């Protein structure tokens, strides 16, 4: 249904990586060596975190436990509430999220794998990876995050800068 004209316009965002950003200020909480049944005890651990009114990101189920990311300011509270359960809890502060923006990232064949491959190749300890429709999110320590962001910019945005 039409009423006018727009011609010779750019329509779509460029293919591939269009930006990189780093969000600092997180802590990774690890809960380990949960006793059997692990699935039920994971829920008990999450209940403690929920009761402490802490929101969490990047939940990952590990062999006998779980890990997740919280704002650094809440790391101590998270640790204290989880320790009440007798679980083995450790907290790694100074965590960052590296965000790599790329529209329809799953339709760019191999791009997600390439991004992770670059991270590992740079010696970055990858603690978590997730993706959504227009970005990949990778959790690592602050220093590695900055190094990785620079590597991604060199690799993907060098020509545009």
């Amino acid at each position: 249904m039409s009423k006018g004209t727009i011609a010779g316009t750019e329509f779509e965002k460029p293919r591939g990586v269009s930006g990189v950003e780093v969000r600092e200020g997180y802590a990774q909480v690890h809960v380990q060596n949960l006793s059997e049944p692990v699935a039920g005890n994971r829920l008990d651990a999450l209940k403690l975190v929920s009761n402490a009114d802490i929101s969490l990101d990047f939940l990952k189920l590990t062999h006998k436990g779980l890990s997740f990311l919280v704002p650094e300011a809440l790391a101590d509270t998270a640790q204290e509430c989880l320790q009440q359960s007798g679980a083995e809890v450790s907290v790694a502060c100074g965590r960052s999220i590296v965000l790599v923006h790329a529209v329809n990232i799953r339709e760019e064949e191999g791009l997600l794998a390439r991004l992770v491959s670059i991270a590992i190749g740079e010696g970055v300890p990858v603690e978590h990876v997730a993706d959504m429709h227009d970005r990949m999110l990778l959790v690592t320590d602050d220093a590695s995050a900055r190094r990785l962001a620079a590597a991604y910019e060199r690799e993907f945005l060098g020509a545009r800068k």
Partner: protein
Amino acid sequence: MKFGGTSVADDASRNRAASLVISAKEQGWRPVVVVSAIGRRGDPYATDTLLGMLRDIDADVAPDPREEDLMIACGEILSAAVFAQTLKTLGHASQAFRGGQAGIRTDGVYGNARIVSINPQLLLECMEAGSIPVVCGFQGTHVSRPGIPGGELTTLGRGGSDTTASAIAAAVGADMVEIYTDVDGVKTADPDFVPDAPTLRKVTYDEVAEIAHLGAKVVHPRAAEIAMKFGIPLWVKNTFSDEPGTEVVRREDFPGRRVTGVAHTGKLVYLQFDLADIPEERGYAIQARVYGLLARYGLNAYMMNHSRRGFGFALPKEHYPAAENLFDGLVLPVKGEPPSVFLLQIGEKPSKEAETQADLLQELGPAATVRIELTENCSIVSLVGHEYLQQPGVYLDVLETLHENQISVLQTSDSEFSLSCLVPEVDTERAVRLLHIRFGLSEAK
């Protein structure tokens, strides 16, 4: 007005779609029609059937993407010509246009081209003459350098006809885009799983993009993105009902809701690489090689997880044969002190390939085996929403709901807009239903 495959599948459907176009014209609009290929998977002129005609010539010789694009574009060309003729027989002048004739220029990536510009001159002339243009969805033309005759036909990839509709709408300055399909709009869950899943009256671009990303068959994010960029209202409607449909809007125009819906992606496998007995440094080198191979061969991994004990990811089942070819029996030499040769093995028992490689490596000394645990028949069930998902206790609610109903969660993943759980495929429908109930989505609007 874009009509999908089921809306143009047969005479009755096409006549219904044509009546909607004519009705719009009679109300004073000047409609531009975009059509998909006729029918769905398995139908004679559907994209996969046409592609099969090329691939079936010799299964061992893959066609070039250029010829694949030429072949599959025929589906939309047939459909557009038939639709234009249908309008003509109903008393309304109409002209069919290939993507290139409609002025759509793309980059040169066959099978997944992006639109770089549109010159809608011929469409505008057609409308000025009182005729209804019917444009082939999903295709455009790539002109590699000025002055060469013609151009290369390219296709736009998944959801390409939706993208065509939005882009044409932007180019001609349309008042709205209507995407017609065979459901009443964007629903809170797959109606095959949740028959009473309500149709959402409004969704934001981000919601619809994330739902599509996580497996729901709704309007393609590329189409929504173009409509948002140019400020054109976008509607998803049902060709076969009078329901009002779903309007896709900007986030700032809609306060949003706690949970948008439950999406699911099926037919996945999960590969877990066991590095528990491998020195840490070597473990990194193995990970780098594995991801490097995935990237080189264009395989995307989802639900990635990394820990000291190993790493894992999900792959679409259709990509598993390629991954199996790549990884089972793969020998990875890593610089440095022994162990420096690693042999990858899928499953507990070595395949013939892995066994043969192990025998051949004997002369170099024992190779360390990296076992890959294969979990077949998985799917991802995702709760989609915004901000609310990060509230304390939401993750717990999701996991508790599944746990209480004996659905095992193999892995989780989350982002700003979604919480996803990898579950056995056999439990997918139940998981979708349970989460739909738990989050009160039957009441969603």
